[in-house]
């Protein structure tokens, strides 16, 4: 007789263990290659958030919160937002708000397109952390069953 573990069955847990890293990696790939292939900060951010949510659904909330605590999530969220705004403000170096002040690099390379990859990373931080925070808040909302 085992004590009841949080989360779903063994099959789900095993598969989750195998796939969650891949999902996270795929999200990071999508973010960093946003300027050369389809995807971008937003889609990648959602995928990264989904990988944590996946973890939470399979193993229960404690494990996922250990990997990424709520304080950290809200910190990353604000940090991503400030980073994006700062990139915009740094554009004043080139003369305009949101001016693409970085060197453009060689097309088709990972390090090209000036501020675009940086913006992607900022958005990814913001979106991933923000959506994770929303999801955790919704999960933790315990609704008492009421009898009228």
């Amino acid at each position, binding site marked *: 007789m085992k004590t009841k573990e949080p989360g779903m069955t063994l099959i789900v847990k095993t598969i989750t263990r195998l796939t969650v890293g891949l999902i996270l990696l795929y999200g990071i790939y999508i973010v960093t290659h946003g*300027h050369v292939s389809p995807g971008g900060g937003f889609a990648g951010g959602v995928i990264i958030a989904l990988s944590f949510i996946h973890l939470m659904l399979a193993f229960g909330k404690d494990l996922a919160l250990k990997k990424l605590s709520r304080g950290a999530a809200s910190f990353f969220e604000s940090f991503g937002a400030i980073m*994006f705004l700062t990139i915009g403000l740094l554009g004043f170096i080139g003369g305009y708000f*949101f001016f693409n002040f970085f060197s453009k690099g060689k097309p088709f390379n990972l390090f090209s397109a000036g501020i675009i990859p940086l913006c992607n990373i900022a958005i990814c931080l913001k979106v991933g952390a923000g959506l994770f*925070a929303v999801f955790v808040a*919704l999960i933790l909302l315990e609704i008492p069953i009421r009898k009228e």
Partner: protein
Amino acid sequence: MFELYVLLLFMIIGAIIAVEIKDLLSSVVAVGAVGLGLSVAFLILKAPDLAITQLVVEILCLIILIRATIKRDIPSVNRRKEVINSVMALLFIGGFLFFAYLALKDLPSFGHPIMRVSQNYLAEGLKKTGATNLVASVILDFRAYDTLGEATILFTAVIGVLTVLRRIGRKRVDEVAKEEDEYEN
């Protein structure tokens, strides 16, 4: 473009099922099907960025909606038909579609957009921004200011959700309530 018609028909039928079916969970699943259909439609319409985004957003929305509906409420939605309400809605929709039909006549026909401004993005996007994904060059360089707004909207919604889910909103008049509520930490 035949497949697009089939797909749209599928989406409309899925939407009608989602609207009319009694069970809430089935309804949510049906709307998920519509969303996935939309994602495929984006792919057919040559918008891979949107297809990826729509797909992941759909998954997230479904998880949130299922979380909201599962084990809640009696599945039977109130059957009391409010005839007047439906008739009014149908009248509004009829009028809307009629005027929309008139308006659509004056639009450029499907598949032949004018692209007066967009020509510049296609022609100069790579040279001026260095990004080979022209959609990325539009959202993060030509129209980066919009994207700032978009990121802010998401930020607003997150703060909004955390605000709405607070356990206690008001302090009682003479009570010195603790500042932070239980959702904080």
